[in-house]
């Protein structure tokens, strides 16, 4: 009898050692990733390719040193997580608020979803647990003040930023692929919710894989439909005022906005060779090559005076591999001059606020949350623990929010602090 290669492979794999598999561990990890991802999609978090997440195996290796490394790395200050100093309370930051949620699956939060430009902490909780995310409440906590809880519309997703006087929240959409069916607006002055519609009465659609909706300005750049797989989508200029038309603006990959300043990449999820920075009010634009080579474009962020481009050089050329984990974070000024480059194995999610960038990592020995100052180049390690249940609520101004696991990683504690 002639044995085949197939039979030999089957024979080789038949010596299977005993497997102690509990599907609950997968479900727990999956829920954590969904929650983490959903939170990452909110606020002024860096735009992500979203979805399936990186490879949370205990991997070693230098990000971007392989085949996919940038062809011409920018001559910026080179940083790794090992350059970080432990952040010291009182010296580097002052804690304004701590929000603790024990056993988040049972309690349903609260989760800190972001900070508004006026310093209000935005929270969300699920009274019936995280399995019933259709029902939630939103909490607004001004600096030093008590939390005011509001009943939220069914299926409300994460806080996505502010537009004029409105707080923008995602519709729950499909939590598996990051697509969002539309938006809810909370008119803070009137204390009421309304759906965001355009001049034809249609819901403004959006895909958070392209980027956050906006921050600050009443003029908003948005997509109007799912992009999900990239590499480009149509950007529209509009506002949250009732009946505003959607005016085609540009085609783009990732997009970020802060006030009237915007930045977008040429592609999403593919190698990207152009970043455009502009101002909606002044109309001026600057385009530059971020020199990220063949690395996969993952996100773009915008600070007060800096643009952040994140890429994954190790993910390879599999078009189906999707991640919000990056290995390169390149910082440029608004004219495209390179300022800094932070590399690591499993960086992300990444969030950009006005003056600080925060990045998480699960790297063995380096796990935790880090903050980089756009003002003075400080790299601080805010905590040496990373919660598997939490997301990426972005800060605003000099306020940052970060998390640490509690209750054996069944729960999470959020710290809202003013950085110094």
């Amino acid at each position, binding site marked *: 009898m*002639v*044995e*085949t*290669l*197939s039979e*030999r*492979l*089957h*024979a*080789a*794999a*038949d*010596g*299977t*050692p005993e*497997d102690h*598999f509990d*599907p*609950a*561990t*997968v*479900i727990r*990890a*999956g*829920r954590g*990733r*969904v929650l983490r*991802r959903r939170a990452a999609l909110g606020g002024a978090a860096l735009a992500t390719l979203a*979805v*399936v*997440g*990186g*490879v*949370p*195996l205990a*991997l*070693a*290796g*230098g*990000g*971007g*040193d*392989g*085949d*996919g490394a940038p062809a011409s790395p920018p001559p910026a200050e080179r940083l790794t997580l090992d350059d970080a100093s432990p952040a010291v309370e009182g010296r580097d930051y002052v804690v304004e608020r701590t929000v603790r949620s024990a056993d988040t699956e049972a309690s349903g939060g609260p989760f800190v979803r972001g900070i508004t430009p006026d310093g209000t902490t935005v929270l969300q909780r699920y009274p019936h647990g995280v*399995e019933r995310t259709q029902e939630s409440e939103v909490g607004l906590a001004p600096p030093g003040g008590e939390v005011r809880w509001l009943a939220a519309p069914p299926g409300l997703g994460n806080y996505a930023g502010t537009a004029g006087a409105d707080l923008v929240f995602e519709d729950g959409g*499909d*939590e*598996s*692929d990051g697509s969002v069916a539309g938006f809810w607006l909370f008119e803070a002055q009137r204390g009421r919710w309304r759906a965001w519609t355009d001049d034809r009465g249609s819901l403004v659609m959006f895909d958070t894989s392209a980027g956050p909706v906006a921050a600050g300005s009443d003029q908003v750049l948005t997509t109007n439909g799912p992009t999900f797989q990239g590499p480009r989508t149509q950007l529209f200029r509009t506002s949250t005022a009732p009946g505003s038309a959607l005016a085609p603006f540009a085609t783009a990959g990732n997009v970020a906005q802060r006030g009237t300043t915007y930045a977008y990449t040429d592609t999403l999820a593919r190698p990207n060779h152009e970043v455009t920075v502009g101002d909606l009010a002044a109309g001026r634009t600057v385009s530059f090559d971020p020199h990220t080579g063949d690395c996969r474009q993952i996100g773009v962020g915008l600070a007060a005076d800096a643009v952040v481009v994140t890429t994954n050089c*190790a*993910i*390879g*050329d*599999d*078009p*189906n*591999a999707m991640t919000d984990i990056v290995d390169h974070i390149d910082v440029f000024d608004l004219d495209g001059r390179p300022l800094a480059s932070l590399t690591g*194995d499993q960086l992300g999610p990444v969030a950009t606020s006005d003056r600080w960038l925060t990045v998480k990592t699960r790297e063995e020995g380096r796990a935790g949350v880090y903050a980089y100052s756009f003002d003075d180049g400080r790299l601080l390690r805010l905590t040496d623990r990373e919660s598997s249940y939490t997301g990426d609520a972005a800060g605003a101004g000099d306020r940052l929010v970060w998390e640490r696991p509690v209750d054996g990683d069944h729960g999470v504690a959020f710290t809202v602090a003013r950085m110094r």
Partner: protein
Amino acid sequence: MRRRDDQEFADFAVAARPRLRRTAYLLSGDWELAADLAQEALVRVYVAWPRLHRAGEGVHAYARRCAVSAWIDWTRKRSNRELPTSAEVLDRGQVEGPAEPLAVRDELMGALRELGPRQRACVVLRYYDDLGVADTARVLGCTEGTVKSQTAKALASLRRHLELRDLVAAAEGGL
């Protein structure tokens, strides 16, 4: 997902894991790593579960794609800093097999170890998972031509091992 969906997913995970783990073992040569890769694949399936149902994509096929993708990611990461790679992994990955002569199995696993990740994936997907060229290309995210050429190169490499010549000759006939 709702609790009902969780139960459906758990049923799928329990059924799919053994095969995923074996595929991952043939790719990695390490049962521990194989377990991690299978776990990662199932987590990705969990996250994508509603979309998979809506899109009508085969869940098993997606899970296998995730496992292979996780394996290739792993090799890229590891190759950046830690060499040698698979030799150590394969050595500590050995377990006592049943009737299969250890020397022969070692020959096969050692020969697989010498292949690049994509060539190894082609061999495992084609001759263990019994996928056609088109399905293998879909899993690896490459063209059918690439699968054919990578498989041919892999078989040519395997042929250098005396114990495998007959097996490879039969496989080459089916290319």
